[in-house]
């Protein structure tokens, strides 16, 4: 006969304290913790990317700082050479990356909107490396794309390491993406709205809560190392005349018309470079050279446009310059985007919107209505254009407010954004992200509800017990579980029953029982189980008839347990499948 001994009272007390803490942490709370981790990861990724970009910038130009400022100080031939060289290097990285890492880099948008949250790290690291050279050499592209992508890949890696089921992995990736965007823009609320509203398609607290936590965490952490500052501060405190709303609505109309044209030019630029897309070192070098040619005349076209917007908001430009700059900037973005530079067009599109607003404002003031300075039209134009290119009015309004922290702008932003939204829809204009959101790898969430099986959405990694596991070990297993149920299996993996937390809860502090009671003494063999081949409606019925947070999933032919399906994961999956079917 085998021997058993009591577990010490101290150890049992420690286990009980941990259990009590763990009880406060259910599956929902656990995802919040992961969201917090994703937020920290986003901030770390942003910091790392920023330092790396600064280093490459120093290597390429011998200087460090704002791109426009640096390019203004360079000779014309340097302005030509640096973007071209950066493009060549960026293209070379892409070329060799395709050979070293054959797997495609899944866009985080595709992974969340369409896929099951799998964003592989290696191909995304390669793409981020390419982005480093493009961005550091002054290409007219934003860093928010690579930041969101890397942060999303990190979150996906964390989720895959923890073997989270598809529904939760998808949410984690969304948290990572929001964290990356928040680090880029110091706009946690707008970043969360962007991901939740546009990509997840849901702002229920189940998903929006963790996303918001991740973006807020990233924003706070980012501020800790870079001081935190408002991106485009506006200190206007005067009265906003109601009649001004008419002109802001006009800004919305103009942006609503301009946005589809902008998106169309980007598509056109892709087609222009299509012939040499298979030689990224060539296409990107040419794209960089084109940016360099434009920069030789107007260095303000380089970079993502942040400093130029600031100068516009400060009223440092005349309208002729702004008009010229807008056209040249669009050409520069076309060159960068079309040639395949890895980066975002979010920030460059803000400059286009700012320019439209500024030009309108200047015209209105010149016509005699000068109660509102052109700079405010500039900010409102940013919001209206952003809304029109993303089809996300709430996100656009919140984003511009977070970037400017000017409360007076809220009502004008609402007016302009709503008008631009309806204008672009009336024109059936496509959003910047429509392609990413509608095409790409399909996932389990695109299938019919009746086609999906329990086996495809279960959690394969879970604590399990043997029949002879002592109560002390059982308690420790519940520390690692948040489902309140742990299956008992034999050596071959056959399911025998399940120990329920609610059964042993009153006995957790009993050190004397820890070495006496074993799993087979206290397991329930009447816990409902799910067949791995069962469909989701069947799983829903099983959960509605039983009060468990999770149920074991068995291979009905062999009796071997394959995993656990939690109620939360089932609901998340059903919710997403239903959402995609309605789109």
């Amino acid at each position, binding site marked *: 006969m085998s021997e*058993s001994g009591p577990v010490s009272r101290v150890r049992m007390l420690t286990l009980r304290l941990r259990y009590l803490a763990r009880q406060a942490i259910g599956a929902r709370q656990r995802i919040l913790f992961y969201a917090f981790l994703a937020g920290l990861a986003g901030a770390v990724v942003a910091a790392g990317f920023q330092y790396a970009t600064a280093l490459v910038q120093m290597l390429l130009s011998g200087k460090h700082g704002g791109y426009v400022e640096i390019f203004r100080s360079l000779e014309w031939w340097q302005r030509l050479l640096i973007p071209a060289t950066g493009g060549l290097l960026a293209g070379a990285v892409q070329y060799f990356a395709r050979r070293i890492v054959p797997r495609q880099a899944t866009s985080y948008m595709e992974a969340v909107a369409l896929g099951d949250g799998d964003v592989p790290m290696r191909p995304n690291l390669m793409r981020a490396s390419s982005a480093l050279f493009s961005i550091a050499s002054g290409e007219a592209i934003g860093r928010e794309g690579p930041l969101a992508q890397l942060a999303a890949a990190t979150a996906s890696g964390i989720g895959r390491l923890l073997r989270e089921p598809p529904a939760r992995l998808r949410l984690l990736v969304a948290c990572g993406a929001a964290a990356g965007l928040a680090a880029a823009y110091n706009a946690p609320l707008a970043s969360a709205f962007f991901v939740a509203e546009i990509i997840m398609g849901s702002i229920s607290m189940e998903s929006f809560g963790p996303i918001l936590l991740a973006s807020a965490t990233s924003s706070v952490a980012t501020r800790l190392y870079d001081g935190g500052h408002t991106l485009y501060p506006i200190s206007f405190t005067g009265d906003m005349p109601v009649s001004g709303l008419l002109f802001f609505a006009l800004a919305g109309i103009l942006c609503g018309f301009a946005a589809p044209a902008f998106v169309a030019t980007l598509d056109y630029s892709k087609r222009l470079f299509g012939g040499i897309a298979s030689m990224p070192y060539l296409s990107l070098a040419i794209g960089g050279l084109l940016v360099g040619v434009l920069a030789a005349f107007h260095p303000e076209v380089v970079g993502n446009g942040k400093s130029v917007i600031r100068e516009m908001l400060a009223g440092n430009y005349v309208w002729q310059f702004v008009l010229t700059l807008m056209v040249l900037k669009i050409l520069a973005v076309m060159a960068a985007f079309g040639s395949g530079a890895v980066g975002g067009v979010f920030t460059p599109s803000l400059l286009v919107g700012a320019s439209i607003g500024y030009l309108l404002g200047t015209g209105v003031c010149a016509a005699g209505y000068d109660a509102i300075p052109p700079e405010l039209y500039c900010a409102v134009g940013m919001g209206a254009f952003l809304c029109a290119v993303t089809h996300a009015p709430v996100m656009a309004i919140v984003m511009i407010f977070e970037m400017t922290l000017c409360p007076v702008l809220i009502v004008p932003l609402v007016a302009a954004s709503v008008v631009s939204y309806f204008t672009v829809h009336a024109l059936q204009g496509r959003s910047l992200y429509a392609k990413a959101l509608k095409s790409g790898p399909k996932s389990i969430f695109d299938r019919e509800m009746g086609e999906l099986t329990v086996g495809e959405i279960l959690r394969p990694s879970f604590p399990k017990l043997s029949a002879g596991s002592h109560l002390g070990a059982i308690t420790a297993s519940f520390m690692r579980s948040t489902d309140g149920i742990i299956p008992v299996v034999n050596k071959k993996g056959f399911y025998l029953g399940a120990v329920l937390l609610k059964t042993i809860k009153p006995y957790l502090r009993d050190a004397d029982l820890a070495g006496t009671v074993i799993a087979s003494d206290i397991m329930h063999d009447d816990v409902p189980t799910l067949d791995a081949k069962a469909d989701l409606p069947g799983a829903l019925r099983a959960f509605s008839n039983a009060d468990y947070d999770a149920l074991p999933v068995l291979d009905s032919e062999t009796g071997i347990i394959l995993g656990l399906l939690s109620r939360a994961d089932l609901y998340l999956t059903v919710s997403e499948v239903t959402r995609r079917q309605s789109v």
Partner: protein
Amino acid sequence: MLQGTPFILEPANILLGLDATTPEEAVHALVGALGESVDSNRKKQLVTLVLAREEEASTCLGKGTALPHARTSLVNRLSVSAALLKTPVTWDASGKTVNLLFLMAIPKTAIEEYLLAIRTLTHAFKTPGAVERLCAAKDAEGFLATLGREIEAGAQYKA
């Protein structure tokens, strides 16, 4: 029913001075002492189940006590018998000897009753001198009365 326990233990279920030289003999006798709780044709089956459980993990608690038991559909309610051995027997591979035994046959659905019963008994044995007082019982009624007192004391006892 003993106060504070979910089981009934009567004098007929108690064997004092049991002459057993092996754990198997002791378990056999204890199952027999369950009386009508177990169908007489099933008692051998219950013995096998208890011994199999003991093989899984020893129920020796130290201080010369053990709580052999089995979950089974052979009983409708939590059934308990007790024995004081004439001579201690070596109970498990550790070499520990046992002379005070409580056997439990537990219905498969009576998990909470089982946990309460086993906690009640283990706490009863923790009181200093409890095991000795039980072993000193002269007859089954005296054993029961002592057990009742030890259970009550065990409920209050904090080491």
